[in-house]
């Protein structure tokens, strides 16, 4: 295969290829045992808060038809541990790192962002879309005004490229996307998980201890593709598409829908090297002149 430039520019940061990981499915400690994280365009790390979060009670995982529900609830060790631990290790490995940032309140988001601003993290991804925490998260992502307000406050604190991750659990995702664009976001990623539930037929109770959880995996892909298509036409920001990408062909579908890059999530829980496999499949697909022509035509819109 001849050398082929797959690099993309996302908010001023050059990724060597358009593939990253979806937050919560990549571990700087464990995934790096399976592949070199600098092989990907970027790696997106799991949400970090100002202080350690315990997450939700277990069971936190339930399989569904062609998908899975999770209610992890953003368990994390806090931003200080992240900066000296996972971030340091990933930067030392030469990775382009996107840190997913979460909080229960504007102040909590700001505290994390101000600490990360002084580091060599490459990009920030504001998680305003986690369906598994009682306050914060999705509360910001379902209200265009709150979302914009948060982005404006964060924007004041940092010049790091700012990705805002949107939730699909809204009536009009384009409105939220436009709102965060106006507030100063540099890129948009979507979709986070769809709020779902599974009932245990023996107990009559939800399988997840938290009751509800976020649905991901191939089952959500058509919803994700539709929303990427809508948002990429509603805003002029680069869009990072995700939701059930299992193959290179799935990734291509998101690019054709209007995403500039893609993130691999649930597939990596099934197979830790999935992002690398998907990248090589996508690379092969992009060697086709007709496919490239389709992509070029789409970008012109």
């Amino acid at each position, binding site marked *: 295969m001849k050398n082929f430039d797959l690099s993309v520019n996302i908010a001023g940061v050059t990724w060597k290829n358009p593939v990253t990981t979806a937050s919560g499915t990549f571990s700087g400690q464990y*995934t790096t045992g*399976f592949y070199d994280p600098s092989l990907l365009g970027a790696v997106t790390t799991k949400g970090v808060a100002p202080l350690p979060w315990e997450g939700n009670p277990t069971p936190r*995982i339930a399989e569904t038809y062609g998908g899975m529900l999770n209610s992890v609830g953003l368990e994390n060790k806090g931003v200080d541990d992240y900066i000296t631990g996972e971030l340091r290790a990933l930067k030392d490995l030469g990775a382009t790192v996107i840190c997913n940032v979460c909080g229960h309140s504007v102040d909590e988001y700001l505290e994390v962002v101000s600490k990360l601003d002084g580091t060599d993290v490459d990009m920030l991804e504001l998680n305003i879309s986690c369906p598994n925490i009682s306050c914060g998260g999705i509360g910001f992502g379902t209200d265009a005004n709150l979302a914009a307000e948060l982005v404006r406050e964060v924007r004041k604190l940092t010049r790091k490229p700012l990705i805002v991750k949107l939730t699909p659990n809204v009536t009009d995702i384009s409105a939220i996307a436009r709102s965060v664009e106006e507030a100063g976001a540099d890129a948009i990623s979507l979709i986070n998980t769809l709020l779902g539930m599974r009932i245990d037929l023996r107990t009559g109770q939800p399988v997840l201890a938290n009751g509800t959880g976020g649905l991901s995996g*191939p089952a959500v892909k058509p919803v994700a593709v539709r929303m990427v298509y809508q948002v990429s036409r509603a805003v002029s920001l680069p869009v990072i598409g995700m939701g059930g990408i299992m193959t290179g062909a799935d990734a291509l579908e998101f690019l054709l829908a209007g995403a500039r890059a893609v993130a691999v999530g649930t597939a990596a829980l099934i197979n830790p090297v999935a992002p690398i496999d998907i990248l090589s499949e996508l690379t092969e697909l992009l060697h086709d002149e007709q496919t490239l022509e389709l992509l070029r035509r789409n970008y012109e819109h």
Partner: protein
Amino acid sequence: MRNNYRIISNREVSEGVFEMKVDAPLLVDAVLPGQFVNVYLPREDLLLPRPISICDSDMENEVLTLVYAVVGEGTLELSRLIGYGEEPTVDGVFLEIFGPHGNGFFYDNSYGPRDEVLLIGGGLGVAPLLFAARVLADGHFVADMPKKISAYLGFPAEPWYLREFEAFGVHVHAISDTIPLASSGGRVGTVVDLLNTEFDTRGLSSEAGTCALTCGPQPMMKTVASWCEELSIPLRASLEARMGCGYGACVGCSIEVKADENADGTGAGLLRRKVCVDGPVFPAEKIVW
């Protein structure tokens, strides 16, 4: 390590409990007792791998044994696969396996030398103890072989694998919740009933250099843990958890464990640990039952 392995046999050893043997030349010398593997199902809608504990690894014949219970759609699917050793017409169904994962029972060398090791298992938890019996019997992973290995095994109905344990020289004591067995004096009951009798008759204690491993239902292990604590017998317990990835990324199987105390007695708080990579085996005194 993720590979396809040919299934040799897949048989029901007790109601709803299946034993699967696979040709696994790449795995047999890489696995440790108490570890598990992720098993992938040949149906795309069943997305997640199933974490299955390793029941035995026969390095000589390159055969890996997995024991699982049919508890849902995935394990039901697994139970339908046919091995080439059972049907001459079957060329050999391949099973995709990724692993091993987890720390295993002998995660450090502090487990020997011992005079006696107790293997305390309930239901499906009996399975990984067989592999532990094998390595204890042949001196792997333990500085000195124990003088004696005793197994206390509880079953909901018919017992299984008693002969397999005996083949490793284990003194086997079995009891069933429902069926009177000769080895338990014709009574029915639980593993804890067995242990209590044993305690009465031969006065087990840590001074005799006894240590124990357990795997089974959580309430059983909790009782075993307090029994061992009372007798100052060091115990390691293998926990079960609903997992997503099995390799540390998804944080689905996170639990709280007790932290080590500092020398001045402070710092003994709770820590979050992942069953898949930090366990599944933990020292019983660290587990929040």
